[in-house]
């Protein structure tokens, strides 16, 4: 599914379907492969990866743990065993390098759900909606951490749609689908990108983690921009584009520095003038 049914028409004509969906396709492949690896065990008895996104063990040797969940556990007063700690170290290093919200666009199981809502929203031409501050997610993040410390439990995991969906797909979905549906409807009717862009504390946490990450999208060819607005239309966090794309006069560099950029690469796909590409934070 393309989030750019309305936008990217020029690109489609100029670059062809494949080239104008390159990063989107790669991203979907990544999401599918990751999910398939987790599902191969329970469905086909192929135990390459065990567990879920909170913690997984690959080939019975490589531990990977979610630093946000572990942080909550720590605040709740528990110091985990060695395996979980090694897993956290690996994940911290990885997302610090590639950008925290790479988790959101390339791994998170809720992303296809909210992308589908965004696609349908533009298809149905639903405009406007409730005003929610994009800062809300950081307040929610803080609230989950305070709650972990205050209740001594990993309270957010009781209702976190991200881990619930992933766990549900692997261990049995039960009533989890109602929560996923709620997120979908929120994004469809209440406000564009409401969940990922405004509420989700997991995304907020990973954005902080990737604040200084070197891998960035850069509007290197920004002089070529013809103001078609396609990139704004497809970007789940459109506010991150403007400074880099239009900041030349104010002396702002072309690299998108906002940690809320999910490095999804849709802007690269959709731009007929090839303004954007992946690069390093240090690039000029």
């Amino acid at each position, binding site marked *: 599914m393309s989030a750019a049914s309305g936008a990217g028409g020029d690109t489609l004509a100029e670059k062809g379907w494949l080239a104008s969906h390159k990063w989107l396709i790669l991203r979907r492949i990544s999401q599918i492969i990751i999910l398939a690896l987790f599902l191969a065990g329970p469905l086909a008895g192929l135990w390459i990866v065990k567990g*879920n996104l909170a913690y997984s063990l690959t080939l019975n040797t490589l531990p990977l*743990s979610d630093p946000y969940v572990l942080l909550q556990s720590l605040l709740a007063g528990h110091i985990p065993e060695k395996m*979980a700690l090694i897993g956290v170290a690996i994940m911290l290093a990885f997302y610090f390098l590639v950008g925290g919200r790479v988790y959101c666009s390339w791994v998170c199981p809720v992303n296809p759900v909210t992308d589908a809502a965004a696609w349908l929203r533009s298809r149905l031409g639903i405009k406007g909606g409730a005003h929610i501050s994009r800062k809300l997610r950081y307040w929610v993040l803080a609230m989950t951490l*305070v709650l972990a410390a205050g209740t001594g439990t990993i309270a957010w995991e009781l209702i976190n749609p991200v881990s619930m969906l992933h766990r549900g797909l692997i261990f049995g979905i039960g009533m989890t689908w109602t929560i996923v549906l709620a997120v979908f409807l929120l994004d469809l009717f209440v406000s564009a990108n409401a969940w990922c862009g405004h509420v989700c504390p997991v995304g907020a946490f990973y954005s902080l983690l990737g604040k200084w990450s070197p891998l960035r999208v850069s509007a290197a060819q920004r002089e070529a921009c013809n103001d078609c607005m396609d990139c704004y239309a497809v970007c789940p966090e459109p506010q991150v584009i403007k400074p880099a794309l239009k900041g030349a006069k104010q002396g702002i560099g072309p690299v998108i520095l906002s940690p809320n950029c999910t490095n999804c690469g849709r802007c690269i796909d959709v731009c007929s003038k090839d303004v954007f590409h992946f690069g390093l934070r240090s690039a000029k």
Partner: protein
Amino acid sequence: MNDTNSKTPGARQPARRQFLIDMAKTVCTVGLMGTGLGLYAKQAKALPPLAIRPPGALPEADFQGACIRCGLCVRDCPYNILELAKPEHNVATGTPYFVARNLPCEMCEDIPCIKACPTGALDHGLTDINKSKMGLAVLIDHETCLNFLGLRCDVCYRVCPVIDKAITLETIHNVRTGKHTMFLPTVHSDHCTGCGKCEKSCVLEEAAIKILPAKLAKGKLGEHYRLGWDEKTKAGKSLVAPEIEHEYTLPEGYKYEQGRGLIPGSSGESVAPGTQPGFPKALQGDKL
């Protein structure tokens, strides 16, 4: 306010007001969410009685801060007895538990579930499965247990992996028939691991013996209680000197024999005037 005669603040104030309103809205929303979730979390700390945690699980309050709901314990249990709670279950979402009546813990010697746990929510210090305390078996219904009815069933006793320590059969005279013995399954909390094999195998439609969280199943003596016989062993001698010979106050015409209890006596004890045979002496006359 003077925003009528001062242009700059007048132009800025709506924006600032909007900012403050947004801020207040955000804080209120998050505060409400947090309070609601906090109350929910508190409630979710109480594990329903029939949901039993895997061996080695930390006390419930700590467990929910330690378990990251990865399901590795579920995966490594060779008997597939564990399940991760779904949102509609009455157990904190995503945490592992089992229901003994469906599938009991097989008490694996190498305890793979504990080994798999990356966080220590299942305590890695527990290496002897016989020392685990998943819960405590309780013979909860004396009215339907076949052994209590005087029939011989003993199934729970025989399947217990810690047979004769965790469950013993205590014999008692069957008053109904007058000539049989009842064998009462009796659980000993110091040896019961809470595996649930007894509950699973109870032959009744609804088990008469059930695993309960120890907190529900165990009574607790007041701190000030001292058990005379314990104190006596501890001290190595009687704490009362000189030791008093126990005096029995028996119904008329009966005598007491260790191990058998009351037996009709052949003694020609004289019956005091105004007393009835078979009525405790202590309640008669002025001997109270």
